[in-house]
């Protein structure tokens, strides 16, 4: 019997969730031996990345936000702890670090994005961050314990980055932290952003900007970092501005995974050119990319990876069964942002509709916190009906996909 081979590269949110959806939907085919699902990943530890904010600014224990990958997977998935080092789209095969070669009929690229402080001179030495993992997030918390006063700068050192609201949340959480510690009057919080306003989307910024002002968080816009001088504790912009700091919390520049770069299948930043509707890798059949790995101009976030996974799993099942009812993702984002004092907003939009006006509320804060509690269950696909009700329409038949204006010649 010829086996239909589905290979998923990357075992983060998108890869794990797609594998589980496929294992659920194709369980008969997998049991019957006509289909295989192989998931490649580097680590057994699977982190809940939004938890990094709590580790960095609330002192949460890193282990609270980590689970064993094998315990998150449905039956029928072969998890291979051996990361891909080469993706050969022409030869339709993936090579792992140990030299194993996996041919595929259907491929999902879920290799994520890499936060890389080394891309800015002096940044790695001069800053702390909560994007490179739970342990580095813990270092932020430790630094805050010994901080008695001075300037804390929150710096967006590159775009796009994972979790667009995270820098703003960091500033709000720092404000909360220093107020609780009773030293807020001795701390200046400076927010350095390349964007024109406190948050890139204007209607969200209309909420965040005045709140920053009220809390005494100083915003410096159009600050595109050039370099950091750790000895002088100064950060410089390409535009010629410079600021001093005592503690620098940075959102490092991001790029695509090494396997994408090394395989020559990414753009200049290592992101995979992807159809923003069907999630197919451009110019390929049966090959998809999801989440942070793509070049699609939407938020790099777990919710986006989740919603794209639903589309990709459906489209692969459609190919396996020959039903030809392809779906397309509508660009829905839904990023929660804590704004301090147990309140939050949600940044929601689609490709066709930018974020709307927001009012911070405790209910939204509870919603955000609730999601963190159900995340592990959500990864196995058993809560999809709840999510469908919460998110509303996030996908539509691919043939109805709207097209952009014609490109200039």
């Amino acid at each position: 019997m010829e086996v239909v081979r589905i290979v998923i590269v990357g075992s983060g949110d998108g890869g794990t969730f797609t594998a589980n959806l496929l294992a659920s939907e194709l369980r008969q085919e997998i049991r019957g031996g006509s289909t295989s699902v192989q998931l490649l990943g580097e680590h057994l530890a699977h982190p809940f990345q939004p938890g990094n904010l709590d580790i960095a600014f609330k002192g949460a224990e890193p282990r609270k936000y980590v689970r064993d990958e094998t315990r998150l997977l449905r039956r029928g998935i072969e998890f291979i702890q051996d990361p891909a080092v080469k993706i050969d789209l022409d030869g339709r095969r993936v090579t792992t670090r140990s030299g194993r070669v996996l041919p595929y009929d259907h491929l999902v690229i879920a290799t994520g994005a890499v936060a890389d402080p080394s891309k800015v001179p002096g940044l790695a030495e001069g800053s702390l961050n909560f994007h490179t993992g739970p342990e580095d997030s813990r270092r932020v918390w430790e630094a805050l314990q010994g901080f008695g006063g001075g300037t804390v700068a929150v710096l967006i050192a590159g775009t796009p980055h994972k979790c667009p609201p995270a820098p703003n949340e960091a500033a709000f959480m720092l404000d909360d932290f220093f107020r609780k510690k009773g030293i807020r009057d001795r701390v200046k919080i400076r927010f350095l952003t390349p964007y024109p306003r406190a948050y890139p989307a204007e209607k969200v910024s209309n909420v965040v900007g005045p709140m920053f002002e009220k809390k005494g968080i100083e915003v410096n816009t159009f600050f595109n970092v050039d370099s950091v001088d750790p000895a002088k504790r100064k950060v410089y912009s390409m535009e010629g501005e410079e600021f001093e700091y005592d503690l620098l919390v940075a959102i490092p520049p991001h790029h695509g995974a090494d396997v994408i770069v090394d395989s020559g299948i990414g753009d200049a930043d290592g992101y995979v050119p992807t159809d923003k509707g069907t999630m197919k890798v451009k110019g390929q059949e049966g090959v998809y990319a999801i989440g942070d790995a793509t070049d699609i101009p939407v938020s790099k976030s777990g919710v986006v990876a989740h919603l794209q996974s639903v589309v990709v799993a459906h489209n692969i099942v459609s190919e396996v069964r020959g039903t030809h009812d392809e779906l397309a993702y509508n660009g829905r984002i839904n990023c929660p942002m804590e704004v301090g004092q147990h309140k939050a907003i949600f940044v929601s939009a689609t490709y066709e509709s930018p974020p709307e006006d927001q009012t911070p509320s405790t209910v939204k804060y509870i919603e955000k916190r609730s999601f963190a509690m159900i995340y592990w269950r959500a990864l196995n696909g058993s809560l999809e009906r709840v999510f469908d009700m919460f998110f509303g329409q996030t996908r539509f038949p691919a043939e109805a996909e709207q097209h952009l204006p014609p490109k200039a010649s």
Partner: protein
Amino acid sequence: MSALQPHKVLDCRGSFCPGPITELFKAYRSAQLGDVIELLATDPAAKADITAWAQKSGNEVLDVVDEQGYIRILVKVTKKRS
């Protein structure tokens, strides 16, 4: 259409903020003084955002042209930390 030959053309049509200005910053990062960057956008905020950035940073918006269904913005890099 401007007769200037841009060093780089950024097609940001169909992308909302921060898409267009983010693409401009990426091009600015690798640009030399004197380079001209052309940006195409459907986002109505692009014109105001890019003009504000140029004013603050000391760079120059050479032209903003209304095309059919989008705008074309020409930016000259006149200030950048060396």
